[in-house]
Structures are given as structure tokens and as C-alpha cells.
């Protein structure tokens, strides 16, 4: 080897630059491996099955011409009584049925596994020496989890829309306020509701990501996140704790129904989105602080 080569050990700043556009390669790769995993596909499969079950159950129960459960707000998730008149309502019913548990559980699994899963597989150290960069990796993981929130919600909505269209008539939509809107407008509201439901999961996603930076066990992180989710849901039912209820990430979840009012009642919807933003900021910063300084020994 020539002397010159030996001496030139300092890293030249020129030849290997970080290209902004290339840094998105990791996000694409992350999306790829998230949605190619059997676990992710199974979660999405379960979510797609919920509207099918609800739709078929409603169809069977009403096949003799009777109304469902005597109508009113009596039993089952919101909007369930309207499904027989309009299949579009299956979208709202399915989202109302999956939002309290199925959707956040799926998000908890993906978010909880995000960093901890890489850590327990040992792949985290190789990503970091690649070098992925800790902040970049965390952002990519969070962006992927949020993408999953959106995809999971859309899977529920689209499955519900398909089942609703197949089993029930479609047509004009009666809002909660009693006014009627066209089917096109109803479809638009359904999309808006799906987006709001997806956004409602931002808080759980941030919480799961933070938990994921605390441990080197993917299973532990998933279990902790889902456990927290259940705990919060239970605490939200205890009236003596009403003073702190507004700070629970799940407290305003079902406010998405307000999008079916005419005019739309924005108060709780905005509270919900604000709360999700707060959770994202709080637990996102906590995750960043924790992950940025963490010794990677796994």
C-alpha cells in the first residue's frame, strides 16, 4: 500500500454526503418490513373481520323484518340501528366498535414493538452503525406507526363499506340532527370520520413508542402498551375520577360521531385532536430523550 493511502485516514467531508432524499429510503424500507410481516397482516385481517361480523349479525337479526334491538340508543355500538336502512352506517358502527379496543390494541402492538423489537432481535445495533441515526430512526418508526394507524382505520372503513354495500341498501344519509344529506356527502363524512379516528390513535402510538424505548423486549413493550390502554379505559369508567378523565387519551375518542351532526359540532372533536397532539409532543419528546441517550447493549 502506498504511503499516501496509509496517511489519509481522516474522513474527507466530500465523497459520502448525506442526501436528504436518500434518507427517505429508511422510511420506505420500514413500511416494507412492517406491512410484509405476518403479524401486521393478521392484525389487519382481524380488523377487517369486525365489520363483516357486525354486518352479518345485523343482517341475520333483521332478516325477519324486525328492527334491531327495538331501536334507540339501547344496545350495541353507535349507529347500529340505522344500518338496515343504509349500509353506509356500517362504516360508522364498525369504527365505533373497533376504536375502543381493536384499533388501539393493533397500534399498541406495532408501536410497542417498533424499537424494542429491533433491540431484542439485535438488529437495532446494526441499524445504528449503518448509521441510521437515532433521531432519524425514531422519526421513521413513529411515522410508520402513524401510517399503520391510518391504514388500519381505512381497512376497517373499507371493509365496512364493502359489506354494507353488499348486504344493505345505500342512499341518502340521515344525520344525528335529523337532517338528510346526499350519499356523496355521506361518503365524504365517512372518510373524514376515518381520518379523525386514525388521528385519535396518535396518542397511543406515541405512548407505545416511548414504552418501546424503555425495554429491550418487544413482547414486554407490546404488553405494557396494551395494558396501559386497558387501564386507561377502565379508569375512564370510574366516575370518582372524573377530574382527570379529560386527560385520558381515550376520553374524547367517540366524539367522531359529532361529524354526523348538521352542522358539525366541533367542540369535542377539537379537544380530542388537541389531546392527541399533546400526547404526541409529550411522549415523543420523552422517547427522543430516552432513546438519544440510551446505551445500546443488546
Amino acid at each position, binding site marked *: 500500500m502506498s*504511503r499516501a493511502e496509509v*496517511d489519509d485516514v*481522516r*474522513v474527507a467531508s466530500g465523497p459520502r454526503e448525506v442526501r436528504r432524499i436518500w434518507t427517505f429510503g429508511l422510511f420506505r424500507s420500514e413500511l416494507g418490513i412492517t406491512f410484509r410481516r*405476518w403479524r401486521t397482516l393478521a392484525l389487519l385481517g382481524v380488523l377487517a373481520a369486525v365489520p363483516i361480523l357486525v354486518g352479518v349479525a345485523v343482517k341475520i337479526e333483521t332478516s325477519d323484518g324486525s328492527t334491531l334491538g327495538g331501536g334507540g340508543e339501547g344496545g350495541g355500538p353507535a349507529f347500529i340501528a340505522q344500518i338496515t336502512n343504509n349500509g353506509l352506517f356500517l362504516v360508522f358502527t364498525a369504527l365505533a366498535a373497533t376504536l375502543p379496543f381493536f384499533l388501539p390494541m393493533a397500534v399498541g402492538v406495532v408501536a410497542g414493538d417498533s424499537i424494542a423489537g429491533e433491540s431484542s432481535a439485535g438488529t437495532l445495533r*446494526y441499524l445504528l452503525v449503518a448509521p441510521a441515526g437515532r433521531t432519524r430512526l425514531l422519526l421513521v418508526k413513529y411515522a410508520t406507526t402513524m401510517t399503520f394507524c391510518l391504514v388500519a382505520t381505512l381497512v376497517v372503513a373499507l371493509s365496512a363499506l364493502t359489506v354494507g354495500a353488499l348486504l344493505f341498501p345505500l342512499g341518502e344519509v340521515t344525520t344525528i340532527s335529523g337532517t338528510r344529506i346526499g350519499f356523496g356527502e355521506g361518503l365524504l363524512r365517512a372518510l373524514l370520520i376515518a381520518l379523525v379516528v386514525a388521528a385519535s390513535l396518535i396518542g397511543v402510538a406515541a405512548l407505545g413508542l416511548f414504552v418501546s424505548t424503555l425495554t429491550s423486549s418487544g413482547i414486554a413493550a407490546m404488553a405494557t402498551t396494551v395494558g396501559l390502554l386497558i387501564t386507561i379505559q377502565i379508569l375512564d369508567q370510574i366516575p370518582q375520577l372524573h377530574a382527570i378523565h379529560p386527560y385520558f387519551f381515550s376520553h374524547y375518542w367517540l366524539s367522531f360521531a359529532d361529524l354526523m351532526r348538521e352542522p358539525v359540532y366541533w367542540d369535542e372533536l377539537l379537544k380530542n385532536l388537541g389531546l392527541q397532539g399533546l400526547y404526541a409532543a409529550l411522549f415523543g419528546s420523552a422517547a427522543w430523550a430516552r432513546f438519544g441517550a440510551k446505551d445500546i447493549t443488546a
Partner: protein
Amino acid sequence: MPHTSTGGRVTESVIETSALTKRYGKQLAVDQLSLTVPAGSVFGFLGPNGSGKTTTIRMLMGLIEPTSGRASVLGRPVPREIRTVLPHVGALIEGPALYGFLSGRDNLLRYDAADPTADPRTRRARAESALDRVGLTAAAGKKAKAYSLGMKQRLGLAAALLQPRRLLVLDEPTNGLDPQGMREIRALVRELASEGTTVFLSSHLLDEIEQVCTHAAVMAQGRLITQGPVAELAAGARGRLTVTTPDTGEAARVLKELGVTDLVVTEDRVTGEPPGAEEGAQAPGDLAELNAALVGAGVRVRGFGVERASLEDAFVALTGEGFDVAG
């Protein structure tokens, strides 16, 4: 002539640490380590399991924060400028880690995507040539969970070879491999070194270090015992002068007069430390004179020579304990 930077500091070392320390609670994992890895060397980092090798490597790669002390890799301080350094470094740390549900090829694409300096347009081609280099082309489409340990190890190496590197850090690269696999990895290391890549290779296998390394450092219990060119380290273990003769008593007397110390007389052999051995160098002339003196004194010499010390002798001499080849 070594190149000096403007500050007059010699920048010929690829890795340099000074008083690098990592403490976990009360336990010192790495204690005041000052290491210098010359550019172009194949540097063996030797020590029993648990002697602080992996902790040191993790500090150099920015995975764990040193408790105190400084380190620089490729002339840049780490962990502060680690992201400028790492694209030029290929690493295999504590065995390979792969995504079992991805194929070997997709694992490489995944790791390459993590490097923001890696050109996505050449990604596939670079992955293919890395696979080819470690002999995994035929198995590239198989899921990584179906790989044998040796194949996983080779895929880990392929990931380290996705880009041209200035430094390869290989932590126990032959761990868990059969003799054939070990030979292949060692041949690859030699090949890479001959292309000018500095290789930093940790191992608990002495013969591995002796076979492939030009330089070595020895660790024990978190502390650096010694470092330098392998030949010097072995020589530092002071090869013993051995004289085979029927006249052992007379031979011992003559040798003692001439300054040979630590004489041990066995049946027909006299062994001892040749004079000047403490300096680590033995002038050949001295040995010839010793021989002449023996013959002059009427000692019938059957055999005369210095038994070359192995690195293992060096290690035993340095640590005062046997080298535990665990596993």
C-alpha cells in the same frame, strides 16, 4: 515518514483512545484504555470473554457512551461525530443479527437503506456483489431464519461490505463456525486487508490473532495489558535459551558466568533467560558467543537455540494466568 496534521499530531492511527473508561454501577467494564490502531494494520483485539472487548467496540461505534476518556475513529472524535465516521466503517458486533422473515438479500437492502449516504440507485448491485464476496449468492433468496450460523455470520459480513470501507470492525467473526468456515472468514479478512482496509478484529482465539493479525492488543479484566506488532509481542515473551547436552552441570556454570539467568537443569537440557532479554531484543552475536564459550569449556553441545515464544506464552507471561479458551 508519517504525515503530520497542522497541529503537529501524527494522524496515522485509525482508532485512537485515551483513558477510555466505561463503568456500569460499581463495575469497571473498560478501565483507562489507551489504544492505537495503525492505519493499514490487521489489528487483533485479544482477551478472554468478559474482558471488555465488546464494550470497547460498542463505545467506538457510538452505541454506548463512555463514562470518561476520549476516543477517535478515522481521525474524528466519537461519539460526537459518529455519523460522519460510520459510513466508512463496516461492523460485525457480537455476532450477526438479521430479520428472520426477510431473505438474505432483503436483509442487506434493509441495512443499506438505513445508511443515508448510500445511493439507492446502486443498492441492488452493491448487495449482489457483497453476497458474491461472501459466497452467499445461491442462498440470497432464502429466508434468513433458515440460514445456518455460518451463513448468518457471512451475511453479517456482507452487510459490513456493502460499501467500500476504510475500517472493518469485526467482533469475534469466526465465533460458532466450523474449521472450514473459520478458514474462509480468515482468508476474506486477509484479502480485505491486502486491499488496504484496516481491520480491527476481536477474538478470544490466540491462534486466530497469530494467523491473521499484524498488530495486537491484549485485554484482561477491562485493562489493556499490552499492544504492538504481533512479532514483537511474541518476542516480548522472551524465548528461552535451550542447550541440549550430556554435560548439564558444566553447561549451567558457563552459562551463569555469561549472564544467563533463571537457569533450569533437566535431564539433558539446560534452559535459561539469555542476557539482555529484558530489552526484548537479543543480538545474534551474543548467542554465538555463548555457544563458542560452551564449546571452549569442553561442553558437548547437541542442540543450541532459542525457542520462539508463541503469543500464548506472551499472554501467560503478561497476565500470569492461562488463557481460558472458553467454548
